[in-house]
């Protein structure tokens, strides 16, 4: 039997949705038979599944969609890591092809399930793709290894629509090598980018962020809440790093400037942190 016929036969045997469109009548045994059978087909079967995927709403790919995910989960749990790595490399390689964005998005998401460092290079180019940068960044952060380098390299090159995503996720991975870039982003015209940068610098406990974050926390409304939170997080990190003078500066400022009754909770938070740090 040709490879494509074998895969087809397995997918035909895989249960489909019921009349309501759910798997509420799923036969567990049939699924648990099918997935290892697909795994035995290696990269060829993975490619076969990918080729059956369609853009949402453009056809019926329910079984291939489910099977690819179930395969990712199955392989990620094996003692031997080689099948998982091969799956990840195969899926990653499919990203280079001419496939609809919805399919690429799904493939990247399966790399969040079973991808590792071997997938990073294939995902990274999508950081500059306006429709996929979000998915790419989130999966890179989930993978961890190699994410910081990919995000950092992408930041100077991405279109404006992707900038917030990159800045925020540099903070998510606590990339110390991006401190300068994050400090620059504190002056961005986009308030959301500024807040993402503040959050990132706070997570990095960057002493150079004390003055700009305190200034940012003088804003009003939402920005004030978020920048103040960043200041408190920064102070906590500075204390943990033994930078007591810098932390005290942040906390004293918040304690002394939050005199509005509506901000009593901030003043008290700063006071508690000062007491805890001394």
């Amino acid at each position, binding site marked *: 039997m040709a490879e494509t016929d074998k895969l087809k036969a397995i997918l035909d045997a895989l249960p489909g*949705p019921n009349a*309501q*469109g*759910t*798997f*509420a009548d*799923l036969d*567990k045994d049939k*699924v*648990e038979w099918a997935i290892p059978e697909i795994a035995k087909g290696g990269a060829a079967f993975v490619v076969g599944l990918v080729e059956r995927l369609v853009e*949402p*709403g453009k056809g*019926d790919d*329910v079984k291939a*969609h*489910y099977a690819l*995910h*179930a395969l990712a*989960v*199955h392989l*990620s*749990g094996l003692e031997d890591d080689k099948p998982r790595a091969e799956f990840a490399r195969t899926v990653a390689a499919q990203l280079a092809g001419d496939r609809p964005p*919805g399919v690429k998005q799904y493939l990247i*998401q*399966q790399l969040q*399930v*079973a991808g*590792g460092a071997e997938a990073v290079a294939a995902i990274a180019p999508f950081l500059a793709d306006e429709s996929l940068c*979000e998915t790419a*960044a*989130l*999966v890179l*952060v*989930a993978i961890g290894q190699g994410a910081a380098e990919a995000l950092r390299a992408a930041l100077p090159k991405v279109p404006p629509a992707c900038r*917030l*995503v990159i800045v*925020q*996720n540099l*903070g*998510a991975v606590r990339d110390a090598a991006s401190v300068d870039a994050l400090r620059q982003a504190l002056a961005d015209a*986009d*308030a*959301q980018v500024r*807040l*993402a940068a503040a959050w990132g610098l706070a997570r990095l406990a960057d002493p150079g962020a004390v003055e700009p974050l305190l200034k940012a926390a003088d804003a009003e*409304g*939402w920005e004030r*809440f*978020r920048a*103040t*939170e960043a200041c*408190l997080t920064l102070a906590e990190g500075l204390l943990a790093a033994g930078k007591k003078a810098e932390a005290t500066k942040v906390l004293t400022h918040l304690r002394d400037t939050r005199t509005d009754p*509506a*901000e*009593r*909770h*901030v003043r*008290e*938070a700063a006071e*508690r942190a000062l007491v805890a740090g001394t």
Partner: protein
Amino acid sequence: MARGTRGITRRAFLGGAAAAAGLLIVPRHVLGGPGQTPPSETFAVGLVGCGGQGGEDVDTYIRGDGAAHKMLAVCDVDRGRMEAAMRKFGETCQGYADFRRLVERKDLDVVSVATPPHWHALISIAAMQAGKDVLCEKPMTKFIAEGRAVANAAKRYGRVFQIGTAGRFGAQKSPRSRLIHKILRSGLLKDCRGVWIHRGGFNVRGYCGRVNLAPEPVPANLDWNMYCGPAPLRPYSSHRFGWSHRYYWDYEGGGLADLGHHYMDPFQWVYGKDDTSPVEVEAYAPPAHPEACGLWGWVELRYADGLTLVLDGAEWGKPYDRKAPRHVEPTDLAPEDLKKVEAMPDPEPLLTFPEAVRSRKQAGGHAEASHRVATILHLSNIAIRMGRKIRYDPVKEQIVGDEEANRLVNQPMRAPWHL
């Protein structure tokens, strides 16, 4: 940043600063009056999420506990729901499409969060950053790391948090439950042989999501991007909105998450587990779908002290038969240890939300406890989704030895949202 709808009031704008101030701010001192509930007992509330549960928590946890409230602001990403809520709560209630504008109001004491769960943590934290106390619908969170962030925010800002389930309040009234609680908290029970099985009540099949959703046009009333918020932005489907959001991993976690919080809240209090989590979790379920919640049979969880918890869906597959139910009994202790436990004072009565707000102490359903309850549910769903036994470190709050499973503990969020 796109700004949501500014306050919309059905009262005609009269013009003039004083009139504008009167429309926007209702000082607490005017909410009482002769013969009415004292102002200190009247909570100025903002509601985020005007769907099915919108308003329920303020009725249950404020009015139901003897205090009064005034709904000053409502927010929903669906304009129709927002306007219906404004009509329901009267002329002084203003509407918002963006919760950030609601939490900016200085005249709110409490924010009631009744959105789908993928927003619960972010809005609760934002409200606390803005100085408000929080009533939050269950399940508290969508994933484990969110709960820790909410608990940290409550502690940092000294805010009161109450989850929208109250089973522990009933449990604490039982002398036997109080005794079991003391036994477990005493540290004297070295090998807990208790097996708590919760059987049924999860509507497993009813909460299965659709695996063949087709994109639909986004309704004109709905801000779909904001609805998705931190969750993946997928093509709109009416089945992902409204009641059925519960059936999708992006927003909740099926019946186990939606209903499990009610069942696990009293269990966790009785067994003294408000500050810890199971260390081993195993599920019996078919391989899970990536987006739609699906079938599951049972989940077995074990705590470090030996206590076993079983969530038995009782609808699908082979029934759970590994262990028989077994209560923790006073006779599980040596007689001299039992005497020590009986001599211990009873646990402090759990505070209602109004009591907690007045005293600035923790409410009975506080953030740490609720986070630990939600962790039971999330670990269960992780075990279902990964199809293998999970080991969990309840101190570091990480899954041990399974990198891919651990990615579900702290799920990255779409910008600009983050914990």
